[in-house]
């Protein structure tokens, strides 16, 4: 049967190649669209309503005094606090790929985010190493880091000596039960970074994260935190991670609908192309089907032949397209990661793509089927 399917596909090589390329292109586009959608809405996955983020409300993106963290820790309902200083930068060997570095007070960040778990050995090494760092598994994988590596980060955040080069040593990699895009942080010591900054920049933080005891009270506790600093020069904006992500996603508009509309149009067009190819191919081979029937092939076997042809064409094209799409999104990652940090081709998207290819195969094989099954063998063999 395989030789028959292969022979049928090779009968009009140019037509098969162009159809195959159409399928590859459609599924590449699907991969990119699905990855963009994931980049936007996927940011919601892994966020928790029991984690709060506090930022500077007075100046967007501005810093806050480190002391705020101690005051927040006393708010009822707050069970853990970590003050973070973000160091925007790139790894020296991959300057095109941004790296998110958080300077945290020792391991406090792991107390807030319970889903991020460094091993006890890594945590001990980190505690005793002022230049130490702990990386997320996805980040370590992408950069090719392993424990013990020296990591140099180039940043716009300048040290007291005027250089933007920050040296760390990897003490371990945390395990994380969260989506891969939440596994891309590098955690370093706040004390080490703070001491290297110019005096005017010291004891400032860009974000304070809190874990609360009851996610249903997130709005109430957020208000309590912001009220705490109402009389201070720097006001705060506190909200749950979940609420923050929802607000961010809303800025992109209805990405899911857009992706669905474009994807549906592309696949409908593809369906027409594949249907046309298979219909033409079947139409040209009616005499061949009649010969096969005369040789003793049952109708069911001919149905499998046509279906096999459709599946071979669509599934191979879809697999190539998804693979190409994955490669393309890897190339795009550096350019979009700072905005769409959940930018990732998920397994769900890959399976969805393969199911779509399966459905297209069934429809495309189904259209010429009645004509094929309805042939009058004697007439076809006589060339009538």
């Amino acid at each position, binding site marked *: *049967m395989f*030789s*028959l399917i292969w*022979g*049928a596909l*090779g*009968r009009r090589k140019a037509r098969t190649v162009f159809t195959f390329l159409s399928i590859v292109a459609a599924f590449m586009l699907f991969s990119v669209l699905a990855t963009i959608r994931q980049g936007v809405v996927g940011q919601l996955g892994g966020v928790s309503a029991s984690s709060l983020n506090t930022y500077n409300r007075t100046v967007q993106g501005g810093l806050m005094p480190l002391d705020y963290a101690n005051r927040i820790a006393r708010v009822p309902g707050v069970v853990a606090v970590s003050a973070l200083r973000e160091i925007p930068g790139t790894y020296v060997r991959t300057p095109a790929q941004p790296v998110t570095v958080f300077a945290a007070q020792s391991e406090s960040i792991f107390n807030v985010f319970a889903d991020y778990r460094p091993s006890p050995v890594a945590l001990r090494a980190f505690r005793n190493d002022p230049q130490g760092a702990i990386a997320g598994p996805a980040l370590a994988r992408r950069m090719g880091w392993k424990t013990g590596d020296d990591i140099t980060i180039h940043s716009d955040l300048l040290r007291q000596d005027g250089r933007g080069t920050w040296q760390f040593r990897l003490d371990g990699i945390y395990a994380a039960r969260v989506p891969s895009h939440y596994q891309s942080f590098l955690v370093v010591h706040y004390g080490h970074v703070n001491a290297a900054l110019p005096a005017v920049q010291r004891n400032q933080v860009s974000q304070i994260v809190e874990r609360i005891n009851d996610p249903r009270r997130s709005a109430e506790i957020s208000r309590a935190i912001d009220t705490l600093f109402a009389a201070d020069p720097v006001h705060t904006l506190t909200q749950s991670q979940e609420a923050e992500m929802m607000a961010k996603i809303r800025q992109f508009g209805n990405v899911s609908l857009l992706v669905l509309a474009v994807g549906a149009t592309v696949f409908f067009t593809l369906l027409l192309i594949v249907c046309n190819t298979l219909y033409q191919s079947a139409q040209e081979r009616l*005499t*061949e089907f009649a*010969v*096969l*029937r*005369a*040789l*003793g*092939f*049952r*109708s*069911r*076997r001919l149905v499998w032949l046509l279906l096999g042809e459709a599946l071979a064409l669509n599934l191979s094209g879809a697999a190539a397209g998804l693979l190409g799409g994955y490669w393309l999104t890897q190339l795009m990652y550096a350019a979009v990661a700072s905005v769409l940090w959940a930018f990732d081709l998920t397994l769900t998207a890959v399976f969805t793509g393969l199911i779509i290819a399966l459905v297209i195969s069934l429809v495309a094989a189904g259209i010429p089927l009645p004509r094929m099954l309805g042939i009058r*063998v*004697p007439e076809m*063999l*006589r*060339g009538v």
Partner: protein
Amino acid sequence: MHRSAMRNLSSIRTPRNVQALAAGPLLSLRRVTKIYKRGSETVEVLQALNLDIPRGDFLALMGPSGSGKTTLMNILGGIDRPTAGEVIVDGQRIHEFSDNALADWRASHVGFVFQLYHLLPALSAEQNVTLPLILKDLGMRERQQRARAALAVVGLEAHLKYRPAELSGGQQQRVGIARAIVMDPPILLCDEPTGDLDRRTGDGILELLQLLNSEHGKTVVMVTHDPHAAARARRTLFMTKGVLSQEPEA
């Protein structure tokens, strides 16, 4: 050249087809009628035909175009059904078979040789011959061995990988015959097997059919317009307007 190759086919020979001209007909038609409807018109292509073809016979069917020869052959081969009457092959009433049963029966009992060869153009000679073997539960190697043996019988062992377009008309017809005999069926039905070939090439094909009949015990029914081709058969019947006779219509 084919006689020695014929011995190679013995691996796919069953005792059934070495019985020569055994008593009792292999194929029997009893009052077979075939009526076609073309619009409001009805055409009676076969008129209550009776015919017995003994095992090991080589029968030529002659007659003008539209006389019903091919229809008769299609009914004998189970690719068409009679409007009325009985078709009994080797004791089996095949006109009562379901479509699937008829397909299975064709695969094991009949080899078809067509005027226009009807080879699949995308497949090699070997793959074309292997086609009927797909229906048998055989390993790849055995399929290949059988296909090669059948191609050796028709003298094309050196052309296994050739596509139909790379073969001459005579060679394509030989591949068609190899495909017809690869399942070792007792019956070969040939519809104008030399109709598209020149005299010399056609003679080679007829010689091959004679050989399959005389040395391999195949029962051959051949439709032809050509008296020269019919002369190779053991006997000839003439068909005129759906009626069989021993002599051509005057």
